[in-house]
């Protein structure tokens, strides 16, 4: 029994339509995957840049805070500070403020859902980094307020203010060093991922350090 010609045509056309639909679906899926990968890469670059900038801000303030602490120890040992004016003139207050650290990349990634396109290890590292950064900011703010209150002392109570300032600076310097170490870890993870997706070469950095050595000796 011979099959009618139209049946063969229907079968061929059905196969062609099905293949076309499957191909279209595959292309769409491929485009979506590309868009997700691109968003993930873009957000990882943005994280890496922000972490680098925060690291530079810590590098900028750390020597100053360490210097203030060393100076404070010296003044404390000499017992030269007795009045509020002497306290202000010797160590100031503005210089004791913690650095303002950026978290725009994190907020943007949360708002746009970019985190869902990143792998678990990267998101976990970033979450830890920004949580520690938040804690650092809250602790510093509380410590700074306590120090401000202590700096409003009466004559003869300078020792207490100096101890509060010393404690505050010691904790701030320790936290700044810890946070810096966390940034380095996060940066290493981001770099590994960016190298894996081919966004940067192994020896490259996402962004040159702020005020890099290029100007040295000029």
């Amino acid at each position: 029994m011979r099959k009618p010609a139209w049946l063969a045509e229907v079968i061929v056309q059905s196969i062609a339509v099905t293949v076309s639909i499957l191909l279209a679906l595959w292309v769409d899926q491929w485009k979506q995957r590309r868009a997700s990968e691109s968003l993930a890469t873009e957000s990882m670059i943005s994280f890496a840049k922000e972490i680098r900038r925060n690291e530079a801000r810590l590098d900028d303030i750390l020597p100053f805070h360490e210097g203030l602490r060393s100076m404070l120890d010296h003044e404390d040992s000499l017992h030269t500070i007795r009045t509020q004016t002497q306290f202000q003139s010797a160590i100031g207050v503005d210089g004791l403020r913690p650095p303002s650290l950026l978290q725009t990349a994190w907020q943007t990634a949360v708002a746009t859902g970019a985190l869902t396109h990143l792998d678990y290890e990267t998101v976990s590292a970033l979450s830890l980094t920004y949580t520690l950064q938040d804690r650092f900011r809250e602790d510093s703010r509380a410590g700074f307020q306590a120090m401000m209150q202590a700096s409003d002392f009466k004559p003869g109570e300078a020792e207490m203010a100096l101890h509060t300032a010393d404690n505050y600076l010691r904790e701030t310097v320790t936290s700044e060093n810890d946070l810096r170490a966390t940034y380095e870890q996060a940066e290493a993870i981001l770099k590994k991922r960016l190298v894996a997706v081919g966004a940067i070469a192994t020896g490259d950095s996402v962004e040159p350090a702020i005020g890099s050595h290029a100007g040295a000796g000029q």
Partner: protein
Amino acid sequence: MRSANGWSGFAGRIVLLVIVCAIVACLPVHVAHAQGNGRQAIAIVVNPKSAVTDISFAELRRIFLGEQQFWPDRSKITLLVRAPVAPEREVVLNEIYGMDEDQFRQYWIGKMFRAEVAGGPKIVYSSDMAINLVGVIPGSITFVLASAVTPNARVLRIDGKLPADPGYPLK
């Protein structure tokens, strides 16, 4: 009688004229001296371990503007600046930055916004604080009135000149 009175009046006028002339002649000297006191030389002080002893005024300007952030030995430069209203700050703003307070603030905000610097200059509240801090922060640089320089402070020569030398640029 009348001519004697006229003569003494004339002599009195001459004496008065001489006194006025003497005062006018002395005035510029006095004003210059007063200005000299108001604009003392500003010494540029660096960390004692710094290898730099002499820099050009152009290089100093680049450092203070945050355009050069590392010493030739690649150590980071920490710039310490006196808080507003200090006379030495005024001289530095005029002579090095060529800016007023508002422009100075805007300048550093702009640099931070463009991520050209990680932070602005660090504020110090007295010459003692500036000199003490510069002594303990490696790579730091500050400015104080030349009269406030202590024996242990390391003063930089600018274009080969110290604050006491004639032609020193920061006066």
